């Protein structure tokens, strides 16, 4: 079906929802096509592609939510799904604390698409393969005899989301995303170390062409090899400096999830009741910006049709706002922030981050390090998670560098660190002018996976627990 025909079918479903007197309905079509190739140990022996399309309908009836989705594009199946969603709402209505109230938003009719230079679907497979092979060769050269395994993955995806709701909104959003991922396992005797690098953006094939191997696969290779001879990180509490990639994990996991208003309303956020109060040191300024050009986590409109943009979360240490959907904004008397995102057609929109970052300061990295007698610089952020209600979080660094007498000293192996969100933010001692938002990844919440990005400056904290072995 053409997008135009899909729109017409969505509008007919919207009319039927209105005829059935629901308080609000949102019918959303989502489709994606993707292609992938993997180069392992010199062979591109696994090449794949796929497509996915369907419709999800969310209704507000009797003050409660019901949702239904189908992978069928048949109009009769869509009507049946509308009936399912209304029936689901009736079930919800039987166990409701208070009727759902949605914030007001003007209707928007728009078609948007992300810009890109080279449509991946028009790039021959051979060209993709040649680029990926180049990355693998550069890694192999950098790691030399220490290579145990090389793996390079290329993915591109085209996504279309059409949102149609009973307030009159009808928005079509198209995006193209391209991703490169490289992993190297280096070996020396029985010691193995793995390092990864990822580059991902709302971009066409130009992302691949603009990625120098030296800053991607060869960088991972050098790190993996150097880690072979690095000692284990120490265990205990240390002053620490976070590389922008760790800052990205910290601001996303530790602070960002706690600013999602659905978690605040659920009583699961440590920031509940703290709006307008000091939650961090003066040097901490945090924004979530879905308008960052070409970034992995960017979008024009969220999955409810609210425009995205730059949301100030923390200003000079003071909590300024939460991330909102129409519902959370309605319940909290705030403006919708365009933060309701859905993972395809088969999930309802929930509050999510986009590109979340701590803003840069004026210090140099050397100035941040200078007065640390014994501490650790954490680099190569990998993953993290948070227990929002307690504010306890952990982040995993792919490597560390010990700080001794104000100087960077020996490298140490990968290690996890942990802390309590509000303690860590209050204990921030400074942020650098060096700044990077380069942690593209997919964030999981309630079974949904969404593209997000994060980063910031180097951040110095008074202390953090380092889960090392030494």
């Amino acid at each position, binding site marked *: 079906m053409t997008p135009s025909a899909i729109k017409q079918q969505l509008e007919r479903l919207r009319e039927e929802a209105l005829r059935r007197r629901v308080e609000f309905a949102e019918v959303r079509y989502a489709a994606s096509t993707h292609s992938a190739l993997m180069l392992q140990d010199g*062979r591109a*022996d696994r090449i794949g592609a796929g*497509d996915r399309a369907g419709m999800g309908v969310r209704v507000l009836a009797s003050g409660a939510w019901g949702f239904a*989705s189908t992978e*069928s594009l048949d109009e009769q199946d869509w009507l049946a799904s509308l009936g399912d969603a209304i029936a689901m709402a009736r079930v919800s209505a*039987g166990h409701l604390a208070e009727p759902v109230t949605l914030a007001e938003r003007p209707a928007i009719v728009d078609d948007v698409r992300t810009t890109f230079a080279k449509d991946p679907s028009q790039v021959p497979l051979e060209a993709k393969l040649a680029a990926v092979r180049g990355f693998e060769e550069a890694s192999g050269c950098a790691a030399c005899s220490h290579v145990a395994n090389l793996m390079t993955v290329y993915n591109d995806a085209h996504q279309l989301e059409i949102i149609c709701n009973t307030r009159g909104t009808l928005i079509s959003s198209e995006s193209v995303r391209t991703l490169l991922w490289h992993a190297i396992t280096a070996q020396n005797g029985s010691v193995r170390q793995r390092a990864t690098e990822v580059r991902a953006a709302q971009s066409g094939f130009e992302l691949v062409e603009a990625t120098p191997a030296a800053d991607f696969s060869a960088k991972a290779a050098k790190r993996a090899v150097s880690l072979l001879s690095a000692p284990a990180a120490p265990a205990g509490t240390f002053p620490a400096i976070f590389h922008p990639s760790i800052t990205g994990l910290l601001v996303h996991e530790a602070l960002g999830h706690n600013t999602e208003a659905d978690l605040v309303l659920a009583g699961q956020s440590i920031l509940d009741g703290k709006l307008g109060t000091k939650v961090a040191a003066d040097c901490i300024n945090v924004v979530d910006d879905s308008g960052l050009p070409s970034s992995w986590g960017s979008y024009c409109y969220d999955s409810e049709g609210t425009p995205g943009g730059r949301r100030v979360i923390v200003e000079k240490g003071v909590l300024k706002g939460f991330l909102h959907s129409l519902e959370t904004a309605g319940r909290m008397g705030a403006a919708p922030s365009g933060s309701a995102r859905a993972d395809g057609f088969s999930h309802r929109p929930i509050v999510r981050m986009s590109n979340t970052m701590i803003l840069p300061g004026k210090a140099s990295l050397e100035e941040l390090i200078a007065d640390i007698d014994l501490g650790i610089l954490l680099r190569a952020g990998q993953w993290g998670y948070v227990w929002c209600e307690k504010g306890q979080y952990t982040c995993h660094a792919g490597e560390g560098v010990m700080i001794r007498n104000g100087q960077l000293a020996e490298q140490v192996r*990968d290690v996890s660190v942990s802390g309590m969100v509000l303690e860590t933010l209050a204990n921030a001692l400074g942020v650098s002018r060096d700044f990077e938002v380069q942690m593209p990844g997919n964030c999981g919440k309630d079974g949904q996976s969404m593209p997000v990005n994060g980063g910031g400056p180097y951040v110095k904290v008074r202390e953090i627990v380092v889960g090392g072995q030494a």
Partner: protein
Amino acid sequence: MSETPRDDLLRTAEIACEAALKAGAEFADALVEHGRNLSVSVEKNAIKSTNSRRVSSVSVRAFVAGGTGWYSASTTSEAAARDAGRRAGELALVAEPDPDFVALVAPEPYPHVPALYDQSLASLSAAEIAAWITQSIESARGVASEALVSGEASTHWREAALVNSLGVRASQRTTHASVYAQVVIRRDGGVGSFYEWDSARKLGDLSPAGIGAAAATEALRYLASRPIKTATLPVIFGPLAARGLYLGLCGAASAEEIQRKRSFLAEKKGQPVASEHLTLVDDPLIGGGLASGSFDGDGYPHRRVTLVDRGVLQTYLHSNYTARKSGEANTGHATRVGIAPTNVSPVPGAKTAAQLIAEVEDGIYVALGQPSPDTASGQISALVDAGFRIQKGELTYPLEKTMVAGNAIEILQGIDAVSSDYREEPGLIMPTIRVRGMRVASGE
């Protein structure tokens, strides 16, 4: 409905395979699935949303000189299956040859695994499912009136048909239900939280009633958490945390990781990788087991496998591809995209979990956490999500900002006891495991 899916799913899978062969593939297989999910999500003691999802998919793998092309689509129409097969075949033609690929699996009789499908569960309405989670809210608030419950109750049924070009025709119908409740309690300036869950394939195996109360009871124990001094201490992993430890070992035992030289268990087959207290069995044939089934993702018959016998690694986890590549027996652990264990359980030991704790003078108990090793290095560095200090044989106070670390094999070889009592879920037993000494970092 019976336990056998409709023939039209098998026919759709055949159409996909035929299209792949017509496009030039030497071998092909196709999995076609469809089903329905119902879920009721809860937020702050009230229903947040009730959801119905119909799901369908076809995934095709095609092979030319060992090179693999794959295509997946979110529909089970014959036209889509034909298109997916053709595209997979075309991609296989441009994939580079893999000389290690021999052939797909040939037809073999499948074991009968009972109780994977329960019509009474598949027929449940959303209102009936909602009752499970609302019971959880009531039972949690019965324990602590200020309890805040979030969570979800869900059911799903699936029909799946797997066909390959060598004559494999496998099909299965399954059901699944789960209830999950996370309880947060704020009292006296402290925050206690815990989660509890139950899962089953048969309605009779599900006991949703006490989940909220159990989570609330635990949450109350974690109100006044604090850090300890960094030290090397005995660590006792409770049933849920211990599972992360040995499932991490299973991940590293994937033959794909071994053959690609990415695992710390390379060349460890037949070697001691844990203490003699640890024996791990993977049994996908347990009736009603959460990960049970008659066949794996290649269409190969499932079988019971002893992975670790008294500390010695007995086998790697194989798919058809890795088994043929290495000349070892296929253990039937293929998924459609890799290798994964099924129902993995340790063999229980001689003493109860309470006895294991009573024997520790100074240590920690990890109730929740993810102590999985890095597959390449074998290093573990993990947060204790929920745990207790052990002093003089008793759990004394809950922990915060506490982490455990070490080398996986050293930790597994440091296991000095597996409990005789255990948490049980369909197909799984989860005992408590004690490790003699681990590096424990904390913030005191």
